């Protein structure tokens, strides 16, 4: 049984040990010494966050910084990096053609408050992480009591396990939260192949289908391209749609695949297929631009709002030339036929969300 557990953990271990090699350059405006300092070379955990690397980075540059208060932020080719997005996700999203090492720039001054929310180092990141975890718990259970009722020491241990990339410690504490693992016969099939038929018990105990917390980052492009390198890169967060929509796994006899999941998240990119089973509200981003923004001051309550949120919206505006070019999860580009449950059981971030990066091509 121990071997079965080890096999089950193999993929999770790869994810937790995954790292992005960073080459961090100090922005020229803050270089006060000649010659300028060499870039810092750091292996950043995929599941971590950039501000957590500051204790490693700051000593490297401290002798060359101008005097004053530091407000640290990172940038890739001019785009300020959102510090609450896991490092691996930033890399998967912004580097269509993976760049190794990833060359990013660190600033110690001039925090772009119009683009980035403030960050006070580790405390801000921890707060953001715990709230994401609460939101995941809310999505799964309808409340986040399990996270709110964690003891101080458990919460601290959980956070430290994320900071240190300690999967065992993380599993020990997070198992108390009872955030269910999705189990179905296809997951067992995937793992039993590598177990040579030895009897396998689902040691997590929970067997449940339900809602999976998903964070979807959609980068829309309208140009044709041969190589990823030819694409003009993301220069503004306006070009990225952030969709926070849980996926409900339907167990109707057949395997629920990544394809099924993507269809429920982005039905307009599967326009050749039937949309009638889509129950999620669709926000049409084209519509949003056409309608002028209105005052936030009206007393009229939209009474049928609850019902409207669940109405199926037709994907009438997107033509069939819209297509999904890329799907990346934890740096992996899975085949669409993969059982979605496998992705959930192995590729979640510690905040219990599945972060999915998608590049779509839309007609101009």
């Amino acid at each position, binding site marked *: 049984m121990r071997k079965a557990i080890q096999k089950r953990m193999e993929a999770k271990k790869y994810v937790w040990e995954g790292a992005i090699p960073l080459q961090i350059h100090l922005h020229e405006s803050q270089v006060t010494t000649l010659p300028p300092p060499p870039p810092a070379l750091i292996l950043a955990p995929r599941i971590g966050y950039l501000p957590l690397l500051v204790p490693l980075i700051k000593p490297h540059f401290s002798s060359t910084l101008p005097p004053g208060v530091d407000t640290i932020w990172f940038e890739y080719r001019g785009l300020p990096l959102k510090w*609450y997005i896991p490092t691996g996700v930033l890399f998967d999203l912004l580097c269509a053609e993976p760049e190794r090492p990833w060359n990013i720039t660190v600033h110690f001054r001039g925090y772009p408050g119009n683009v980035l929310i403030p960050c006070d180092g580790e405390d801000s990141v921890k707060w953001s992480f715990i709230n994401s975890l609460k939101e995941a718990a809310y999505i799964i259970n309808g409340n986040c009591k399990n996270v709110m009722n964690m003891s101080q020491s458990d919460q601290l241990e959980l956070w430290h396990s994320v900071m240190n990339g300690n999967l065992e410690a993380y599993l020990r504490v997070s198992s108390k939260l009872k955030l269910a693992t999705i189990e179905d016969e296809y997951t067992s099939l995937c793992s039993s192949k590598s177990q040579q038929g030895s009897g396998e018990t689902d040691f997590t105990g929970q067997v449940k289908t339900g809602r999976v917390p998903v964070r979807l980052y959609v980068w829309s492009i309208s140009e044709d391209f041969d190589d990823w390198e030819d694409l003009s890169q993301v220069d503004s967060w306006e070009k990225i749609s952030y969709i*926070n929509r849980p996926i409900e796994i339907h167990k109707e006899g057949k395997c629920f695949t990544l394809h099924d999941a993507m269809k429920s998240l982005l039905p307009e990119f599967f326009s050749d297929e039937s949309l009638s089973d889509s129950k999620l509200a669709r926000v049409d981003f084209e519509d949003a631009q056409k309608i002028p923004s209105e005052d*936030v001051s*009206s007393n009229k309550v*939209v009474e049928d709002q609850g019902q409207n949120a669940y109405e199926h919206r037709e994907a009438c505006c997107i033509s069939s030339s819209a297509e999904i070019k890329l799907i990346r999860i934890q740096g992996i580009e899975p085949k669409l036929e993969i059982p979605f449950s496998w992705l959930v059981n192995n590729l979640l971030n510690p905040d219990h969300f599945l972060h999915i990066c998608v590049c779509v091509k839309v007609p101009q």
Partner: protein
Amino acid sequence: AESPTSVRKVVVHLRATGDAPILKQAKFKIPGTDKFAKVIDFLRRQLHRDTLFVYVNSAFSPNPDELVIDLYNILTSYFHTSKGISLVVF
């Protein structure tokens, strides 16, 4: 009545607790396609505060990039309500 293709608006209720000041207007509508960051900004301006902790349904504090409509759907998926999102401000 709203036309089917117009942007849905979400009702947001404000409940100030602790020593947070009470807003004159405790209920407002915001387009579903707006990010939660807009709600925070609006509240910061109204309350004249730089730092604000905003919790939804007394549960969690959302990511600023989250769309209001996504948040609404998450919050109402277990409890069908026409009340909209309830915010608690610290």
